């Protein structure tokens, strides 16, 4: 933390030169465009993902603001109905498929997983690069389709609307299909890496919890993504060749579509939120200088969520005409997800107990995260309470709920990860004061945006409404005001992080004095992650115990 002697451009072989002047950091090891575009270094691939993911977040965010401005008044405000319908579709699709799903695994998973496992790279570096290009290819195709012709089905593509609409569905579906492969490839890569590339000393139960989370996420990705791939193909075929799969006019079943869709998309929620949980386990341990309270419970609960996450999809369909009994079954299974999440929450809070809390920016995001997870999770349980879901289904209550749990929690984790690992990735520090201010703004703005949406949903406002009855206006105005606060917070972050990239103070190897494994190497790390002998891993990660007082931690 103290500005050390090593104030130099990141990685340009500063201070302790005797060690690594021939081991430049991955950032400067090759500076041609080609050396980036064709790199097989997981860290460079992670950074490129970061660039694209942030760009798509910006696109999705702009569309979010357009939605909010449109909803400022009950009638038309800035656009016509068709444009609005395309706008929320674009917002949803971009945010889900291009931002949320890849965000943490593809950026921080890629960057940190090998570092945390003491490995030189992921198991299949070339495949890793391929997954980036598959993702970009699919993204471009989908975006092209959305801008040329424009799609208005919502990101859920429900049939028979999606097979009847005159807007162009096929390229977008195909784009999403392609992006799915990127997801699968990344998932396989992480699973194999975790199984085969752990450094000596890192047993399964000494893996950092972020690795556990990414591992569980990858399992879901590999198992669930093919289902949506299949579904998208079926819809395309139905569209192009008039198959009667989902369209009742041709003898199909529209509810079948919903089953297949949610069989993927419900676990997809955990693809978004499990990595977030993983990040937070790292952050809370690092900033309260404590071993994770109930490490095994947290690790197992990731697997538990991944598992029961597959059996809860029917809670999206309580009023779709499915049988009452089936509704009940899905309701109970939904409760189980809640219990696994509760285990994590309690153990995070337990981690702070008897810790040494340093209230830095990532920890501020942890606080926001705790709130969004508890509140978002509880509203999820409320939605799983079948009779309550009857009035809430497809209203703004649901919009608020999923923004709290998947967007809120994921964004908090994404920002926490960005701030926690920024020194590791770029070797520089950002301005703590501005960072705390923007964290406060974002957390406040987020609440101000979505708490009114819970209430307007209670009041009965359905989602995907371009116009609405007068009585919903006050809450909508509040929500829009909150959204501008939120957007302002992001602008500040963009400013000081860009500034820090160029002018930030050198971070040094481990500015947080964290005992996470990834901090055992230089910041930024050299191309093959470690210089000299590989670090050893005698202790579990985040073992902050005073050696003099240490009782041997063989417990749990």
């Amino acid at each position: 933390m103290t500005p050390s002697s090593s104030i130099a451009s990141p990685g340009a072989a500063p201070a302790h030169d005797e060690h690594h002047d021939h081991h430049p950091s991955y950032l400067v090891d090759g500076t041609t465009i080609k050396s980036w575009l064709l790199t097989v270094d997981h860290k460079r691939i992670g950074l490129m993902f970061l660039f694209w993911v942030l760009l798509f977040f910006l696109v999705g965010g702009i569309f979010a603001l357009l939605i909010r401005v449109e909803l400022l008044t009950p009638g038309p405000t800035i656009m016509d109905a068709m444009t609005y319908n395309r706008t929320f579709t674009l917002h949803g699709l971009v945010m889900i498929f291009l931002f949320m799903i890849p965000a943490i695994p593809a950026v921080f998973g890629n960057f940190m997983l090998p570092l945390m496992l003491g490995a030189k790279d992921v198991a299949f570096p070339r495949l890793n690069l391929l997954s980036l290009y598959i993702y970009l290819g699919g993204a471009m195709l989908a975006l092209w389709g959305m801008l040329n012709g424009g799609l208005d089905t919502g990101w859920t593509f429900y049939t028979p609307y999606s097979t009847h609409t005159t807007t162009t569905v096929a390229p977008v579906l195909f784009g999403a299909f392609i992006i799915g492969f990127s997801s699968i490839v990344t998932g396989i890569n992480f699973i194999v890496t975790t199984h085969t590339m752990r450094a000596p000393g890192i047993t399964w139960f000494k893996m950092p919890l972020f690795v556990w989370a990414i591992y569980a996420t990858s399992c879901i990705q590999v198992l669930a993504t093919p289902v949506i791939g299949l579904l998208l193909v079926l819809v395309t075929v139905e569209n192009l060749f008039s198959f009667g799969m989902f369209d009742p006019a041709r003898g199909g079943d529209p509810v079948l579509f919903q089953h297949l869709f949610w069989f993927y998309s419900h676990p997809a929620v955990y693809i978004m939120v499990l990595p977030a949980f993983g990040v937070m386990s790292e952050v809370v341990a690092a900033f309260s200088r404590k071993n994770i309270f109930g490490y095994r419970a947290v690790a197992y609960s990731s697997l538990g969520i991944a598992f029961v996450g597959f059996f809860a999809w029917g809670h999206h369909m309580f009023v779709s005409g499915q049988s009452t009994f089936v509704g009940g079954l899905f309701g109970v299974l939904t409760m189980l997800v809640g219990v696994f999440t509760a285990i994590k929450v309690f153990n995070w809070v337990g981690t702070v107990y008897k810790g040494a809390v340093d209230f830095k920016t990532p920890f501020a995001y942890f606080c926001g995260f705790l709130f969004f997870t508890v509140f978002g999770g509880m509203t999820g349980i409320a939605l799983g309470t079948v009779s309550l879901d009857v009035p809430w289904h497809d209203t703004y209550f649901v919009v608020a709920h999923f923004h709290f749990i998947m967007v809120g929690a994921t964004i908090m984790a994404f920002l926490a990860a960005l701030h926690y690992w920024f020194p590791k990735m770029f070797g520089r520090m950002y301005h703590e004061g501005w960072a705390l201010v923007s964290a406060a703004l974002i957390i406040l703005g987020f609440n101000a945006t979505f708490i009114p949406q819970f209430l307007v949903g209670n009041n009965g406002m359905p989602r995907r409404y371009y116009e609405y009855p007068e009585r919903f206006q006050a809450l909508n105005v509040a929500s829009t005001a909150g959204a501008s606060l939120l957007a302002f917070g992001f602008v500040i972050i963009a400013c000081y992080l860009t500034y820090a990239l160029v002018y930030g103070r050198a971070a040094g190897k481990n500015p947080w004095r964290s005992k996470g494994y990834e901090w055992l190497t230089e910041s930024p790390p050299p191309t093959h992650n470690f210089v000299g002998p590989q670090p050893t891993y005698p202790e579990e990660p985040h073992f902050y115990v005073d050696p003099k007082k240490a009782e041997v931690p063989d417990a749990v």
Partner: protein
Amino acid sequence: MSELLNNILFLPEAASTFAERVDLLHHFVVGTTMVMSAGVGLAALFMFFRYRRRLPAQATEYVVPTLKTEFLFVSVPLVFFLAWFGIGFRDFTWVTTPPKDAMDVYVMGKQWMWKFAYPEGPNGVNVLHVPANRPVRLLITSRDVLHSFYVPAFRIKMDALPGRYTQIWFEATKPGTYQVLCTEYCGLSHSKMLAEVVVLPEEEFDVWMKEQRRGRLQDRQDALADTSLVPPVARMVEQGQVLAGTQGCLKCHSVDGSQHIGPTFLGLYDRVEKLDDGQDIRVDEAYITQSMMDPGAHLVAGYQNVMPTYQGKLQGPETAAIVEYIKSLRTANVREGASEGPAYDAIQ
């Protein structure tokens, strides 16, 4: 108390028996959620303060939960969640199981309007009249894409699916006018697919229903007088009867109780049929509709799977008409008295 909570939570007026149940559970759930969130939040806040870092490299104790702690972490939330679920599921079962004496109304969603039809009464667009304090069952279908029928004040919602009927019921408790919204995205004017439910005191409803019939009768006679107009087949049951003939149902199904290629329609509704696979099934609207759309799904014992599907051949309202026709055939001549007036036009 509950009035106050409803205001804080922005809940609309509660105007059905189901709404009262939903709100009670809602308060319970929100209450415990708030207490639990506050508990977690305050504990965290307390600890951030109590355990703030004093030295940059401070060491900490190695603390791990005991088995008992972990057990508490799991069981306390689980007990609450299951309790909510239990109550919620009981209420859900209740609202998806209409009482036998419920009055039926057919609801059809169509881009972008709601159509209502009473087996015995008028039809209408975007205005549904119902009596207070009498159970009403909605049989919901769609003409085109998915819609969802939502009345916030009654706290009920049910999807409208093309080619299929779904049902839900309610009992309105207060006369008044309540908004109906569509909550399944259905295209351009999804947000304008509004309608209203007018709840009338019981006697007024009966008067209204009579009025409607008389009015319609007058219309029809005017129409008959005007020879340039071919009068539409007026009553749902009549229309169903005609359709059953033109669609060929009656080639295989008798209406006088005699067995033919298929089972007779007489007394079919509400009968318990023995199926091929040994199970029993009670004939209701859903079963009749399914038998038209997917005849092989539940084959009645003793018959062959020869019936063609009517999927795509019959429109929602036509299906409804045939269902009504079959329902009318409870005994050989139950509908004798019902010819007193054409009630309404066929819903299109």
